[in-house]
């Protein structure tokens, strides 16, 4: 992001804000943010020292109200402001141009991200593609062995997962709920009935899975039990479908 304020411009703008009315320091920060669409967010560490400097120079003064400093412009401050009216006009113009500028920067930024992502993924896919293709003979056989290996690997991973769940099911339950609630809370407005209901459904499903896993971790799973469970779940899925199609 290019600097929003050139040299001395911030000082001028602070005077202008205080000329409009006396303000708290945090109010000044907020106004600056608003003017710049939240893109320029001056920190208190930038603004307070500036105000202190202006005060040293006698351009602003402050009084304490409710334990907070309220700054206001002095006659000397007004003089400086009047002397720099032309500059102020330029500044206003720059600020009004800022929506366009910000849009341009957003665009360039996104395009850059998107382009480098595309290049990166294309390159990775190409590397993967050219790797195992070099040797075509015996490809089918090796592929079969490969799948067998993958199946074994998958099985192993599943067992590992099962162990993990035992230890972590408690944590997962909380975690999943939290993730859901958080995500749907931040989703905001969307279609009103939709997002909320989706969120609730998500939570129901998450609770269900977490609970099932927790119970499974406590009991001994066998092939027969698993088959029974599959039948039960298929039934449940059918019911769910019936309800949703209603």
């Amino acid at each position: 992001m290019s600097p929003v304020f050139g040299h001395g411009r911030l000082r001028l703008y602070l005077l202008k804000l205080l000329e409009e009315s006396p303000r708290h320091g945090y109010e000044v920060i907020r106004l600056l943010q608003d003017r710049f669409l939240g893109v320029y967010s001056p920190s208190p560490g930038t603004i307070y020292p500036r105000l202190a400097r202006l005060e040293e120079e006698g351009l602003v003064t402050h009084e304490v109200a409710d334990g907070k400093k309220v700054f206001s412009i002095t006659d000397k401050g007004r003089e400086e402001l009047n002397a720099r009216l032309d500059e102020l006009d330029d500044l206003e113009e720059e600020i009004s141009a800022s929506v366009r500028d910000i849009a341009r920067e957003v665009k360039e930024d996104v395009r850059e991200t998107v382009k480098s992502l595309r290049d990166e993924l294309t390159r990775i896919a190409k590397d993967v593609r050219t790797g195992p293709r070099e040797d075509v003979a015996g490809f089918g056989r090796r592929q079969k062995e490969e799948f067998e290996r993958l199946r074994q690997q998958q099985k192993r991973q599943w067992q590992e997962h099962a162990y993990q769940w035992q230890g972590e099911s408690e944590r997962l339950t909380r975690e999943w709920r939290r993730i859901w609630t958080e995500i749907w809370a931040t989703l905001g407005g969307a279609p009103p009935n939709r997002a909320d209901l989706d969120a609730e459904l998500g939570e129901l499903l998450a609770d269900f899975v977490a609970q099932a896993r927790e119970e499974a971790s406590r009991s001994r799973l066998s092939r027969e039990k698993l088959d029974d469970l599959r039948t039960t779940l298929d039934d449940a899925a059918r019911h769910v479908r019936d309800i949703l199609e209603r």
Partner: protein
Amino acid sequence: MQQWIIEGPEQLTFGAVESLDVRIVSGRLAVLASEGPPTLEVSEIESASPLVVTYDEDARSLTVAYKDLTWDGLLGWLRRDRRRTVLSIAVPKTCRVSAGVVSAPAVVAGFERSTHVKSVSAEIVLDGVSGDVTANTVSGAVESRAMQGDLSFKSVSGDLTVADGTPHRLKANTVSGRITADLALRPTGYVTFTSVSGDILVRLPENVDADVTVRSTSGRLISTFDELSGTDTPGMKTVAGRLGGGMAALTATTVSGEVALLKGEKE
């Protein structure tokens, strides 16, 4: 109800705005979420027929369009005279946004409620948009960064790129456009990509929890996730399986396009 006829560069400021409907033909369009007062700036305009800005205080709606342009006749805009407008609009992030462009590249950033964008040949950039988002184009590309929520994308030949996306529901449908997506998936994430001849490139985090199915009739399938297994029957190749504990779902289907499923860093 207030109305302005815009024939030259101009700046306008409005009261509360909850819905925005903007349609332009060529030039440039920017719609940004802003905490300040809603503003509209026309910095260039070159057109036989003037641009009409309508602000309805009661409905809190803002409409920007040429008098004779309606949503229905989007393609018809192409046949009309040259109309070039450079337009920048700032409205609150909770505003519902509908934007239509023919050949004017559009940037839309920061909205969280509902955002609908249509374009014929222009490129659309979406940054930090969440909620309910639709983007339909004929040949224009859609580039999205940091999207959340629901995104529905349709195009004939326009590409879709999703960088750093955390979709809840992401549905992309294209004929020959290329789909590139770098995604993180939450447990309710539901992603469907469909193309006829366009390639599909997807990257998921190494520790993603998702059920994945990738299919193609004649295109090549690539996966760098070892957990996935492939079946190859005449007329349909499939790579499918469960990543991590599963639950989010991702499906990518093409007729002749290539699908690559790539493993990224841990999330």
